[in-house]
């Protein structure tokens, strides 16, 4: 199978997910444990039901936790925890490649 290092991929993703879940629960006072939050749950609209003001807070959360810049009008990035994780991984890999 095409996994260069299966466990390393899991560990990296798990680390980002853990940070994001803790921050989202804290910032939005969500009545869930990290285990309760499925990574694909919709952040805006249905699912967690966050609104457009909350979207800004999510952007700030991602930028401060991972030192990456979320572009304006990046609604696709804000769909779920998993889409945020994909974005962070992509940005981190892009920065590493640029160095």
């Amino acid at each position, binding site marked *: *199978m*095409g*996994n260069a290092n*299966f466990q390393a*991929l*899991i560990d990296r*993703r*798990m680390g980002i997910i853990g940070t994001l879940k803790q921050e989202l629960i804290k910032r939005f006072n969500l*009545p*869930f444990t990290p*285990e*309760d*939050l*499925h*990574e*694909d*749950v*919709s952040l805006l*609209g*249905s*699912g*967690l*039901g966050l609104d457009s003001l909350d979207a800004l807070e999510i952007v700030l959360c991602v930028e401060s936790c991972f030192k990456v810049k979320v572009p304006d009008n990046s*609604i*696709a990035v804000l*769909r*779920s925890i*998993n*889409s945020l*994780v*994909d974005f962070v*991984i992509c940005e981190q890999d892009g920065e590493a490649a640029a160095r």
Partner: protein
Amino acid sequence: MRNLQLAARWVGATLAERHGVEVVSRVADFETEYNLVRDSVALTDFSFLRRYRLPTDQGIDLLDGLLPGNVARIRYGRIMQTFMADDDGRLQADCYVANNDEEMILLCEAAAPDDVMARIIREADREGIAQDLTDSHVLLSIDGFRAWAVVRDLFGVDVLGLPYLSVELYPFEKEQIYLFRAGKTSEFGYLLMAPLSVADRLFETVRDAVTRQGGGTCGVEVHDALRLEGRFFNIHAEGLVVGDPLVLGLQWMMDFEKSDYRGAAAIMRRRAAGLSRKVIGVLASPGENRLGIGTHLFHGADEVGEVVADAWSPGLDRWVALAVFRIDMAYAGLAFALGSPQGREVRTISMPPIMAKSFSVKLDEM
């Protein structure tokens, strides 16, 4: 079998049965119906959902004792998504609960026959306050990139201000009909609930408005695929196969401070024990065959997952699926072998894998 009240309107369509209830399965070919929703708008019949009206003052307590969501916290004019479980905490129905001022509306999409659902409501409703609207009303679904234009033409421009998951009453001929802004296609979606006395006229009026927007009619098969593409929960697909709301990631539909709803003890017991499996998205390579419900997934020689729902995605031009994985493997971005340790490669993905066109529509552009 409970037949559709508007069956005469669906002559020529393929009808099917789901848990003893008639549904419009398909009207045209799959891709045509898919493109209607993605590019314009499609009308279908959602009267297979059971529907109830309850007075708010007593209805909140009744529904709170039945459903894991916190019904008392639904604001006026808004809708909550939750589910109904059996005593073992396994899924029986996907539910919308709407707070419409003096009344609560419960819409149930059940994975159980009508008589089972009716008995559950009857047992919870000791004072006989729930009015069953299933036979007296129809439910039409309008979904698509241009669905907003259809309801605007029908009810006026104010309808555009309704947020997702809200309810409002609108006059139609001499009746009041309910408009629920909901839907599970990722595009704009509206449900219209109307009494039988105006059902035929409403159907005609909506179909004409849909046609003016370049749309048409569709069945529930394409809705199943759209739900999977958009990672909306489908009681008839992964819900039926998996059964456990925790494994399916439906915790967001629950209030864990509640402990007295149907199935609560079993669900809380499983939550305390911790999850051992979780459902995530899987994508086939382009040109590959469908993944197949029940097919196992392997990491090396170890069987680590099983496909629980799949659908052809015209948007992605490949098969997409949901699979239940061992919890330590349930992450996006990994490759697994399908069917055997030597099987073809499929990859786990973040869901949803598509970005609906409706997300790009701005209110001032409508």
